[in-house]
């Protein structure tokens, strides 16, 4: 399982930050870990007392406090001996924990402060495809199904074209269908979803303000008059601020983790001495 995926779970992040604070709190106290000397500071004892109160209510007696200190010393000695023997090294739980803590610290560092307008404007400019209003088109269409011979379709189509060019109401021409006869300022993506990709391409290229066709759709043939077309345009930041901020934040997080890794990776010399083909093929 990828660690990044775990870290993308906000709940995991939330709990781990808490746990991290707790553990840091425990580790910062003792000094001189290298040698066989353990100093139990006043601050640490005060913490023990505070925790005792939080969990059990009431203050510990001096005897109880001494018991807490003894337990702490006992655990610390065994912990140090275990770590010295490398027991933490191959334990996947500890490995995962340390990794998570490390990445959380990085994320926290990278996540300082909200984006400025300049940040967001720059991000918007750098990722126009994610935010731009797609090309849109306004058109009328007259539908002809594919029943009958091609010559018959052609005949019906040409009759309608002549009528439309003479100024006949297009609503009276062709056949009814569930497709709208008039399409108002609609993105080409949407037109492709409704009429099929070939038709959308045709509409994108059709001359403006004249009846044209036949354009083929997924349903049949169409007599089409495009009345307006707008190229893709980048909206002003104010109209897409929330979406830009959302993406900017995600991007910052990913970049910070990746940049840090790249930097560290550069310091390491890695030798993979193994075959990278799986021993057990899936079939």
């Amino acid at each position, binding site marked *: 399982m990828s660690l990044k*995926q775990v870290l*993308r*779970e*906000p709940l995991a992040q939330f709990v781990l930050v808490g746990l991290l604070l707790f553990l840091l709190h425990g580790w910062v106290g003792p000094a001189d870990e290298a040698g066989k000397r353990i100093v139990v500071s006043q601050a640490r004892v005060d913490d023990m007392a505070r925790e005792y109160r939080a969990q059990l209510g009431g203050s510990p007696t001096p005897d109880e406090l001494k018991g807490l200190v003894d337990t702490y010393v006992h655990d610390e000695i065994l912990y140090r001996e275990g770590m010295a023997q490398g027991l933490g090294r191959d334990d996947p739980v500890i490995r995962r924990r340390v990794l998570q803590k490390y990445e959380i610290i990085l994320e926290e560092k990278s996540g300082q402060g909200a984006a400025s307008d300049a940040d967001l404007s720059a991000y918007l400019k750098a990722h126009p495809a994610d935010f731009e209003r797609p090309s849109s088109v306004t058109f009328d269409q007259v539908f002809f199904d594919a*029943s009958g011979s091609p010559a018959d379709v052609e005949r019906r189509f040409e009759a309608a074209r002549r009528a439309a060019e003479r100024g006949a109401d297009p609503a009276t021409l062709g056949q*009814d269908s569930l497709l709208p006869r008039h399409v108002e300022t609609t993105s080409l993506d949407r037109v492709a979803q409704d009429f099929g990709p070939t038709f959308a391409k045709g509409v994108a290229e059709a001359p403006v303000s004249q009846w044209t066709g036949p354009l083929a759709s*997924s349903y049949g043939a169409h007599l089409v008059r495009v009345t307006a077309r707008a190229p893709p345009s980048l909206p002003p930041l104010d109209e897409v601020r929330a979406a830009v901020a959302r993406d900017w934040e995600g991007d910052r997080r990913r970049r910070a983790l990746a940049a840090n890794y790249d930097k560290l990776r550069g310091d390491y010399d890695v030798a993979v001495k193994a075959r990278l083909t799986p021993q057990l093929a899936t*079939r």
Partner: protein
Amino acid sequence: MSRQLMIASLVAGASLIALAGCSKPTPATKAAAGSTAASAEAGAYLPDPNRKHPERVLWGDEHVHTGWSVDAGVSGTTLTPEDAVRFVRGETVKNNRGEPTKLHRPLDWVAVTDHSDGMGTIGELKAGNPDFLANPTTKRWYEMMRQGPEQATAATLELVRAQATRTMPPVIMDEKWVKAAWQKTVDVMEKYNEPGKFTAFIAYEWTSNALTGENLHRNVIFRDNADKTRSLSPLTTWVSGDPATLWAWLANYEKTTGGHVLAIPHNGNLSNGRMFEEQQYDGQPLTPEWAASRARWEPLFELFQYKGQSEANPRLSPTDEFANYELWDTANLAGRAKTPGMINTEYAREALKSGMRLQGKLGTNPFKIGAAGGTDTHTGLAAAEEDNFGGKLASSEPHAGRWNQLFAKEATYVRKDWTLSAAGYTGVWATANTREALWDAMKRRETYATTGPRMTVRFFGGYDFTNADVKGLVANGYAKGVPMGGDLKAAAAGKVPTFLFAAMKDSIGANLDRVQVVKGWVDAAGKTHESILNVGWSDTANRKLTAGKLPPVGNTVDIKTATYKNSIGAPELVGWFKDPSFDPKQRAFYYLRVLEIPTPRWTAYDAVKYGDKMSADVPMVGQERAVTSAIWYNPA
């Protein structure tokens, strides 16, 4: 070539002659058209006659699980609610195996419905949270999860069974995890919900498995935003698996917040007879209050999803040529085999019938269910496209050989992954792409379910429709009748329900074979019946009705290449019909079923892509379909 505009008098005439031999369509007189007897059900959601009518169907999935669902997480899903939403918006997302994946077309809306039971605990378990490693069961699951996909799947099944049999370790039931995960979920949905553009519902799944794995699950979908929902704690089933406790919780939510919420049950097919049982959860007889509650909170039912369809079963509908489709009818969710009779109370069509029968006794039809479709994906990816099937669990995400993996060893059947159905989207006729407008359309059941393709389907009922109304069908439908999900009031003397229908193929999909009306009714003796009428079909020159049945449309699928041709079928089927056997004293429902021509099933695409040699029992071709919410006829 076929004539796409089905002339209704032909169709209805044929049906009339075949089935009843009674009247010819009566032309609507001016007076009759002005005094339509059709009207919507009275109540809080009475449509405003001046309301804007929905112009565009909005596609979505009301049933998506992510790695925050405990069973999904244990089985290897790491994707989050954020990944799930980004995927249905059309972005490229890496699946749980690390492969970039993308839908052919985005969806308009989604409801991420992670299980409330154990919600959010799995991240803790995976991270080796000491709370979880202290319990021997969760510790074992933790270890199994780390031993690869097979062990992870085994752990998932153990977990599902523990939930179903109420033997879940206490640490998973601790409410603090649910609440934290819920708030994060709500925050993600708020972040991506863009009124007018894309709707991310705030939702969860309430996952009651009764006591031994009988699927009584419900997706709970809120109309509201974070201000009303973020501070609540989703209801779990730790205290009770009785759906009535959910309804009480929903009522309390509406009362205390002024908000609105509904629930969508699913997988009646895995409920071992309990989804539509005619008794209360504890065995007590049904009461008018119980019926009213169920009807109020559950306006929809999920017909299609990855774990099989719950529309109809061939053993219940032996004359239905198309009911034998994507069936999972061997066991309940925990693998316990069905005993005879259980299937009687599992499928929507039977429930639509029994609901009307119960209405006679209880005053309210408790099973007045409209049509919904949802994937029930547990990968975070709502990928129900046959040529892009995302799989049910991380273990069934696309790779060679997935068809032959074990899904579950049931008591009497070894269920493999090839039985998974790449199915489950809902089309909603909403006036806007917002939580409010979509939810309102769901509440009034102006919805239909599909097995994946996005065909456009319209269906209107009234008393005054004629063949002339086919031109300008949508405007006429709303002006003179009610849309799918609506009610017809008692017929005036001599009036007979008439219907307008229109189905247009998916713009990048297969042509249509036929349109059918499924009618169910209750006779004077309280016995229920059904009939299936073919009302529109392709190639009418060569395909003629014989005793109500049509010759098959044909099959253009080339299994070797997993391709098909639209050289058969019709792009659009439109028409009008009149009930040929109407009895004004009998309660009845009518729903539309639209069938595509045969196309390759996901297994056929896999076989080509991976060179998998599949066994002979694996289906390679299917007729995908849409099923609308019913229109009900209510006698005086």
